């Protein structure tokens, strides 16, 4: 089920009302049934895969707690093997097989490997990672094994975050299923406002920007530098609003019922370094990799070369997590490279900044850093969004200048051609407008000043702000059955 569908508009209030209507000891069951229904609205049969993962990790969790010595490690390996195995089968097998075939093909060896025609279960990467965090935490002794099968199943399946996160830790979520939640009006309104802002980001910003991005990235060879640059710029905000919009709706929906999920984004494009960007972008996944891959590999408390190796591995796996395509691997590698290069050049950059006198103007320096980071991130988004590596390099080459001279003249013709496909120049301008609105609102929310004025102001002012948001969604939203981008992961 999609958050931006009519189906959810009926499902959510109904489940919430029932949640508060039933007694506390039956709530887990209600949420579990609702979560199953939510998931089965997509591809019903895949609930069996989810059930398999849940059963394995539930049992392994208890066995790990009861086991001693090496057996614990072995059981953890079983859990990781099962989760990664299922993920690999559905997500990576064909990618691996195709690459093996092409590799041997280079040497004239004709291997035969069967390719699977399996559709990827929605959100598989999210719930396998969440399930693994449970067994790892039990293994580390930071979480007691959950004995109640229903509660454990709900931990993996809790519908607001089932298909696209945030990837929760058991310490945060499981205990909340035992807490009694009362219908607190202030909290409910707070949750609904989060959902509203999330939907605004998705329907008004992300899906509006997506129209141009999809046109341009479908056939990048038909466009020159300027439009390729605009489409990439739009994509940076599309993916942010699409994913953070989903996360806000998820957190808001949980909040209405009394649950507090992990915040997944913190204005990532205001970052002044790549490290800061990754602390602000998809926080639940970044911290997952930090805690369960990067630190176990040795983190930064090791030799410099090993540290860089750890970073590179973490980012490569992070890229691959997003999808079985070389473009994602390059995207991950590029981000890893940025980080390592940033560490290596930190002192040189500081000296250059001092020499140029930039350190005397910290805010100007900050703005410069912010722009530089945004530019680097946009470069990496080209690989993330492009259909293949060839397209990505073509786009980068065109933006960098090879066709820029004629590009400006061509842009007019290209916009005319887009108009024939139903994308008007006014939509292009509207794209910049909605990005402006996003930046203004996010800044106001972060600074607390405007948010405080609204919060403390008269009720009518709060209503007007709500109305502005809801009416903008109704009037300016794009409603074309567009799933969230991160559903495919």
């Amino acid at each position, binding site marked *: 089920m999609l958050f931006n569908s*009519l189906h959810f508009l009926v499902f959510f209030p109904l489940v919430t009302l029932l949640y508060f209507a039933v007694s506390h000891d039956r709530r887990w069951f209600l949420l579990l049934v609702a979560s199953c229904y939510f998931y089965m609205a997509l591809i019903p049969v895949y609930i069996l895969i989810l059930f398999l993962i849940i059963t394995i990790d539930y049992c392994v969790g208890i066995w790990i707690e009861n086991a001693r010595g090496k057996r614990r490690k072995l059981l953890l390996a079983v859990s990781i093997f099962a989760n990664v195995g299922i993920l690999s089968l559905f997500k990576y097998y064909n990618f691996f097989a195709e690459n093996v075939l092409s590799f041997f093909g280079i040497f004239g060896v004709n291997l035969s490997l069967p390719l699977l025609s399996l559709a990827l279960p929605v959100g598989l990467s999210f719930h396998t990672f969440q399930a693994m965090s449970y067994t790892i935490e039990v293994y580390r002794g930071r979480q007691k094994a959950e004995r109640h099968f229903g509660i454990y199943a709900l931990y993996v399946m809790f519908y607001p975050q089932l298909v696209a996160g945030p990837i929760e830790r058991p310490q945060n979520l499981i205990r909340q299923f035992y807490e009694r939640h009362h219908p607190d009006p202030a909290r409910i309104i707070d949750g609904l406002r989060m959902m509203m802002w999330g939907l605004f980001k998705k329907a008004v910003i992300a899906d509006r920007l997506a129209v141009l991005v999809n046109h341009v990235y479908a056939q990048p060879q038909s466009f020159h530098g300027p439009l390729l640059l605009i489409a990439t710029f739009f994509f940076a905000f599309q993916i942010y609003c699409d994913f953070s919009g989903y996360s806000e709706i998820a957190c808001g929906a949980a909040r209405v019922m009394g649950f507090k999920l992990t915040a997944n984004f913190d204005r990532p494009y205001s970052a002044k370094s790549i490290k800061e960007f990754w602390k602000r972008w998809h926080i639940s996944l970044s911290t997952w990799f930090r805690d369960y891959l990067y630190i176990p590999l040795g983190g930064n408390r090791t030799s410099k070369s090993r540290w860089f190796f750890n970073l590179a591995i973490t980012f490569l796996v992070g890229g691959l997590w997003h999808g079985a395509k070389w473009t994602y691997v390059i995207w991950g590698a590029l981000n890893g490279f940025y980080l390592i290069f940033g560490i290596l050049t930190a002192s040189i950059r500081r000296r250059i900044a001092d020499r140029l006198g930039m350190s005397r103007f910290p805010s100007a320096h900050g703005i410069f850093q912010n722009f530089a980071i945004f530019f680097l991130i946009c470069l990496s988004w080209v690989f993330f969004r492009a259909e293949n590596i060839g397209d990505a390099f073509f786009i980068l080459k065109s933006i960098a200048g090879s066709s820029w001279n004629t590009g400006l003249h061509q842009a007019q013709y290209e916009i005319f051609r887009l108009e024939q496909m*139903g994308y008007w120049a006014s939509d292009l301008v509207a794209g910049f407008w909605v990005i402006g609105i996003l930046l203004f609102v996010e800044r106001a929310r972060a600074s607390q000043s405007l948010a405080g004025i609204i919060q403390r102001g008269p009720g009518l002012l709060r209503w007007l702000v709500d109305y502005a948001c809801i009416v903008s969604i109704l*009037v300016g939203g794009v409603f074309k059955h567009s799933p969230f981008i991160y559903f495919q992961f």
Partner: protein
Amino acid sequence: MRSNLFFKISGYLLGLIMTYVLVVFGLTVLSVNGRPLSWYVLENKYESGTDSGQSLLKFRDIEQYRGVDILIMGSSHAYRSFDPRIFRSYGLGIFNLGTTAQAPANSFFLLKAYYPKLRPKRIIFETYFAVFENEEGLESFYSIVRNAPLLKEIVFMACAIRSPQAINSLLSEWFTRFWRPLSLRSQRPIRDESYVSGGYVDSRRINEPGKEIEKTKIKWGSRQLDFLKRIVDFSKKHNAELLFVLAPLPERKIVSIQNYNEIISRFREASRRYGVPFYTFETLGLDQERDFKDDDHLNYFGAQNFNLEILKILKVKTPG
């Protein structure tokens, strides 16, 4: 306490509805560069009297008709394939209610709106499969709402589409009609094309030779199939004979659709299930350049040949 909460929620919702109506009104009234703001903000970019189906003239024309033998429903395929002049020469009165991208959801409500006036004995539903991909029927609605009288069935159509954009478009058009009623609007002429009374658009254009069409696969939307069923039920209820007809297509178009055979067999299956005859003509041996205006639609010459075939199916005797 409870009644206080009830009044608060009611007040909130009432305020919200009023704000929404006011915003749509403002967008309709205010204009930039000669276009209302609604054109820039709302998704509906259709302007009255500009669509290639010449719907403005069609919905004016339909007012003159009372009782016809055959009613044609469907997309641009319908209004470019059934020429009332030929049917008239065989003594059959027809009206072609095809409109741009008309999906079964749109056809159903148009049928409900105009059946009482036209009372056709036969209804031909042109089953151009691409419209079945369109889950909402929004594109067709956009064109209808700009050109047709805002009857209650059009309001129901907007609700059935289940998209706020349909309601926005309906409301905005309703406001516009206060100072720009349909009677004051005119159809923009389209080169080499003319409207023929009875709902047909006569095109003398010839398809471009040697063009290649990108290969596609048609996705089948379940929602439009539900509406197809409702059309079947409606026809049965009113004792009107329903026929599914797929007008001829250029050969290269058929080749470009990878799942063409699968789609045709789906229609055959639906035809068997509903007890409605289905006629498909493939290319009908027509010339893919001379007899078509483009890679989707028949031109005047192609329609002549096709209509003679249809008349054979309807078992109409040669005039004179």
